[in-house]
């Protein structure tokens, strides 16, 4: 799966869970500061991403995933 495909997959999840406009989702965007995803929604995003991409994202990793790009890199490395 390419980085663009993973980003698109995350955009789908973010739209479903937090109502984020998919056009706003890009690797440089911060989940909390740019996309307004709060901590509870972030939990939902992580669980949905694990399911969608078939990866495990432990809770202690989540705090390192500040931007969409961080998440894409993590998922890319795991899958």
């Amino acid at each position, binding site marked *: 799966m390419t980085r663009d495909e993973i980003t698109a997959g995350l955009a789908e999840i973010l739209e479903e869970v*937090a*109502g984020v406009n998919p056009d706003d989702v890009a690797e440089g965007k911060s989940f909390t500061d740019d996309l307004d995803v709060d901590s*509870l929604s972030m939990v939902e995003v992580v669980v949905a991403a694990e399911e969608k991409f078939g990866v495990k994202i432990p809770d202690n990793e989540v705090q390192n995933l500040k931007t969409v790009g961080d998440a894409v890199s993590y998922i890319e490395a795991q899958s």
Partner: protein
Amino acid sequence: MTRHDVVVTGLGATTPLGGDVASTWDAMLAGRSGVGPLTQEWAAQLTVRIAAQLAVEPSEVLDRVRLRRLDRSEAIALVAAQQAWADAGLADSGLDPERLAVSVGSGIGGATTMLAQDDILEASGPRRVSPHTVPMLMPNGPAAWVGLELGAKAGVHSVASACATGAEAIALGLDIIRAGRADVVVAGGTEAVIHPLPIAGFASMRAMSTRNDEPERASRPWDKGRDGFVLGEGAGVVVLERADHAAARGARVYARLAGAGITSDAYDIVQPHAEGEGAIRAIKKAIADADVAKMDIMHVNAHATSTPVGDMLEIGALRQALGDHPVLAATKSMTGHLLGAAGALESIATILAIRDGVVPPTINLDDPDEGLTLEVAAHKARHMEIPAALNNAFGFGGHNVALVFTRA
């Protein structure tokens, strides 16, 4: 110390009869029933297969992402509160948030969220349980969301007194303003538990009507053929305001909340006191608190749920505490029983009865019980002068609440 007068300046509701106050009131005056069959697959196994479901789904009003984190009872409390707030014209009034409080309760709370998340827990494991579960099921959730929405900083309160909740929440609002802790209180009740477990629980108590083949005729307070209440869902919210505060901003005033009486039976966890002792004291206290002449209280919106025992006890209590002159209404004959929202929705009906000079009809009263020794506007609304009116609400646990409203 002079006591602050409290008036009602805003109304909001979403009910089995309509998505707002105007449509609900129109349907009430027309004598329409909001009760229908439960067509969900889960209903087939139940002895009770009827209910009064919302006329307008919250998804038609609130956006999808917002609804993901709201229990249905929270969503409809928000819908009703938004309406009441807009109706009161407070949005751009410059009201100090530290002078705005919320008092919104629920009888049962986020039970359907708990049950749905338990299904997820059982089927998919703990990691799949929504992080929104706790704020969705907590009993203060509806009040907290309303407070968040309106920016209320004078305190957010969530009364829980079963089917007396909505009325007691309004009584608490009255106390808050009288005590000087807020100038405006958004007060009411909400309930949304049309789900097999609560229905099975009430049905096991033999408290519900099983007239499944005639849903619209099932809720029949005071009628000889009554066989229990019909579960309804919905929310009702009123804006209470210190009278001089409302006058200073030129607000439209629906009615005055003149007084409240609250008592507890200390008798039985579900049965009302055999002589209605607690109800009698609540009504007397409300009349004394309101300082109105009994003869001015020309109308009562009764608790009257359509149960064999409770309906008649209330008649006796009203005769003793108030007299034989009021004209009664049991609007639950049309809305079903909204549990924690009932006292709020019925307060709204009481307020509008005063404003419009009309007692709403009590439908299905085809064959009145001999014990019904007070007048009821059966089948058709009755137009008459109503200087003041009473709303009763009683709840499991022995809670009795009576509210007196008077003309503005």
